[in-house]
């Protein structure tokens, strides 16, 4: 059985660590000593779609980490470089999995060691209620595939099986890029529109009745993104516009029962005056577009506006 280390004790990292603790020897590397102490003292409570308290070996010191076979890098994209540098020289035989939004996470980790890498994206979401309590909100899948031929498909299957045995949902792909790009185009659009309008991901994102309805902008941004994917030779796994329509429809059904209005992470960051992941999401898309010679005037505009909003807001 795999020994697992989750790097990053935010919402997503806590969800992985909490669920996997029931089926594997699980450690969690966090940034703050108090965070580790709270987890050691109280255990990690997961509520919402799951409900349990898990025992995880938490530490803020990479030197104290037990041996592990699978490392899940679950930091924000903005913190990944620093997190990966803390693993340099550790766990030489381990498989590492990146789950960051946007593009380029694997290359960042690669700079700090030659671990075999699994590319992943996750659609899970949750709410942090404290150092030792996270609420599991959207119990959606983690999608994964081998990065750059460095791991076998069997190894990726083992990771999927482990996640599923822990109560999470997962799916494997021989090549993750079609799925990764679907999510990139979706996120580059939905996150920036939400961050700039202060709207959660609601029905207006799919409205196209009036000429200046928000859905036109969402649609046009996604069309630009699809042109970049096509130029990169990636055939998208899902159509981002259909993902958008389905998500807002599901959101409205759940909102009617008083539960759900999904606040995209970039909007959360803007509201909390934190640095956003825009460089890794829209920035990555714009850089790819430049490299491939595709014009993306709308995404360039959104990128500049979010960057300016971080500075001014």
């Amino acid at each position, binding site marked *: 059985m795999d020994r697992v280390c989750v790097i990053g004790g935010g919402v997503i990292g806590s969800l992985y660590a909490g669920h996997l603790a029931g089926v594997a020897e699980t450690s969690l590397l966090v940034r703050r000593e108090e965070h580790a102490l709270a987890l050691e003292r109280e255990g990690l409570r997961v509520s919402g779609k799951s409900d349990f308290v898990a025992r995880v070996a938490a530490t803020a010191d990479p030197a104290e980490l037990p041996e592990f076979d699978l490392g899940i890098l679950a930091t924000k994209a903005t913190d990944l470089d620093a997190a990966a540098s803390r693993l340099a020289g550790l766990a030489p035989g381990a498989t590492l999995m990146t789950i960051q939004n946007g593009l380029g996470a694997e290359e960042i980790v690669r700079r700090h060691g030659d671990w075999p890498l699994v590319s992943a994206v996750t659609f899970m979401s949750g709410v942090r209620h404290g150092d030792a309590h996270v609420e599991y909100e959207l119990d959606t899948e983690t999608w994964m595939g081998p990065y750059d031929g460095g791991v076998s498909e069997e190894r990726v299957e083992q990771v999927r099986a482990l996640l599923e045995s822990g109560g999470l949902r997962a799916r494997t792909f021989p090549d993750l890029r079609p799925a990764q790009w679907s999510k990139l185009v979706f996120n580059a659009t939905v996150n920036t529109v939400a961050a700039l309008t202060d*709207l959660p991901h609601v029905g207006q994102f799919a409205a196209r009745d009036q000429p200046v309805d928000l859905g036109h902008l969402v649609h046009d941004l996604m069309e630009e993104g699809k042109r970049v994917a096509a130029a990169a030779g990636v055939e998208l796994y899902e159509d981002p516009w259909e993902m958008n329509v389905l998500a807002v429809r599901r959101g409205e059904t759940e909102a009617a029962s008083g539960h759900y209005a999904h606040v995209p992470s970039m909007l959360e960051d803007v509201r909390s005056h934190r640095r956003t992941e825009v460089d890794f999401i829209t920035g990555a898309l714009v850089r790819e577009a430049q490299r491939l010679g595709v014009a993306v005037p709308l995404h360039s505009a959104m990128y500049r506006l979010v960057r300016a909003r971080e*500075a*001014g807001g």
Partner: protein
Amino acid sequence: MRVCVVGCGAVGSLFAAHLTQVEGVEVWAYDLDPRHVEAINRNGLRISGAGELEGRVRATTNAAELPACDFGIVATKSMHTDAAMAACASAFAGGAVCSVQNGAGNEELVAKHVAEVIRGTTFPAGHLAAPGHVVWDTKGDTHIGPFEPRPAPMEKVRALAEACTRGGMPTVALEDARGAQWRKLIFNAASNAIAAVTGLTHGRVAEPPTRELAWAIMGEGRSVADAQGIVLDRDPEELFDFAARKEVAYDHKPSMLQDVEARRATEIDFLNGAIVAFGDRHGVEAPLNRGLTAIVKGIERSWG
């Protein structure tokens, strides 16, 4: 000459008070703020700041009290143009009405209610300090000309320009005032929308990373102006950089940012939205202006 200012906020008050300084001009004001109207009727209309003056203006909240006027000067926020003109149209049955509002599309609304319309663009700005008292922040010129589909005769345009100028509001009468209007529209659309979305002052909007975006937004505005055969009187980009100087308006929060911060409806439909609408009519795409219009409307929706 009898003139009625429709919407006696900061800009309307500047015109009203200055026109009282001209012999032979009787000035009325129609405004919906009862405290402002009462203060004007009790103490007169006072201007301080860039100039000091006081004028006797007859103000009312009731359009039925307005006498027949030779001229109207419309200075409401753009989204109130239609309702304000519907209320006081009968006072202008024999007169000409001039818009000095922001953006484009106001004259079209005025023309729904009166026969003789004057297109106008004004740069002076101020703010209401107290009922009956406006602080004049910025001096500047006004350009007016006949509104082509329902034009006021040129001699009326000249008469109004002369009265404003003699009162202390320098005003130029032009056969075609569209070039001046679109220069200010293009400038305003870029500055206001970016500021409203990012929270930046005008001077910071003129710096990276938004500078290039501002220029692209102005470029779309230019294409829409070109398609209508409008020749800009000067470059909006030059105005943008001039306004960004420390000693001019670097720290100024454009009005749409002030509206967003106060959660008031914005004039987006008459700025970027107007560029989109005129572009649609003339077969010119303005995707950045369209996108910013959608974002600002999204911000307005986020207030619930």
